[in-house]
């Protein structure tokens, strides 16, 4: 089910009353709210992150394999880092190429319908001017159009991959560079 405008406005209004996370664990969790894929994180470029390595245990055995092939310790370490980054980019691409759920879309309606809905909505004592109401209606209508443009929704997946392209380019360039044998 698509979300109704009434539900959306009520959710937003309730969210304004929140005083944010209180506990340390909650604060730590919310600190990651803006994290999308972590591909730009500094830790990835400086050294192999042990937490990430635990997700891809086979990469550790690759280092031994590279050493046995004649790569130096430092080179094999760099190569494993490059492989890890490439793998993360691949995974980010797979999870980014998704269709938007209907819960994240506003139901289709006309601008007139939206304006009349907003007129009915809210406390009669609220001092919302017709100009303010019209602005909110226009903003919501823009989102309604975006959410109901099916070709636009299809393109959102490509757009997600376009945003990952620079990480992809860097990851595979690094992988190629690090795999070259040096003496």
């Amino acid at each position, binding site marked *: 089910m698509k979300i109704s405008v009434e539900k959306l406005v009520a959710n937003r209004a309730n969210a304004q009353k929140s005083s944010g996370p209180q506990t340390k664990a909650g604060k730590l969790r919310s600190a990651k709210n803006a994290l999308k894929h972590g591909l730009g994180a500094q830790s990835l470029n400086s050294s192999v992150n042990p937490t990430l390595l635990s997700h891809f245990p086979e990469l550790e055995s690759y280092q031994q394999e590279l050493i046995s092939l*004649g790569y130096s310790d430092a080179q094999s370490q760099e190569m494993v880092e490059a492989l890890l980054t490439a793998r993360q980019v691949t995974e980010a691409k797979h999870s980014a190429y998704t269709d938007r759920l209907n819960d994240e879309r506003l139901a289709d309606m006309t601008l007139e319908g939206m304006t009349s809905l907003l007129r009915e909505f809210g406390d009669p004592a609220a001092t919302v001017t017709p100009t303010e109401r019209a602005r909110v209606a226009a903003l919501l209508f823009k989102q309604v159009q975006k959410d109901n443009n099916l070709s636009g929704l299809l393109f959102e997946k490509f757009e997600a991959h376009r945003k990952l392209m620079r990480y992809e380019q860097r990851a595979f360039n690094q992988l*190629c560079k690090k795999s070259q*044998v040096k003496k």
Partner: protein
Amino acid sequence: MADHKEINLPQSASYSNLPEYQDHVNQILSSYDLPEGVLGELVRQMADAMWWVKIYQKDKDHLIVMKMAMLVKSRSDVGMDAEEKALRFFDCLLHAWSGQELEPEDQAFLDSAMRSKGHNLASLRADAVRRSVKELEVIDRLIERQFKNMRLLMQSYESVRFAPQLLKKMDLQIKQLEQGIEKNIEDQRREVSRQ
């Protein structure tokens, strides 16, 4: 497509879990004699890039067809009925464009919608492509990126595969250079002692 989504878009997400994806990767691995370890990892990455090329090309076509469907859909159509109508157009257009025969009812539905907008199949497609130039450019750049990734991965594969031979060759070259230098030093010593 999962049931919880009302829009029946052509492809489902999370490709890495799909059997088709796994089959594709296994097929590419077999063509490289099933390498393991680092080489296997590199071949899997290559297979992934090839997979995306296929998906992008398929979805690029779906995007054009969806644009065609949105063009024939009436502007006054609003709500879930409009979405269902657009999706029906999409299905009919996809079948018609791929040369498949439509049910007479679907054919009539499509013809009347196109006629109302003054289009035939070819002109509608041309209009959709013209209106999607920016989006299509992005998709072409994504496809190009996959080819570049494949080339870089191929180079990495060659580097790792021939690393032992290359190191041996470099080792021999260094030994040869060392011997040459030692010989020069020895010659110089002999010359000095002769004088």
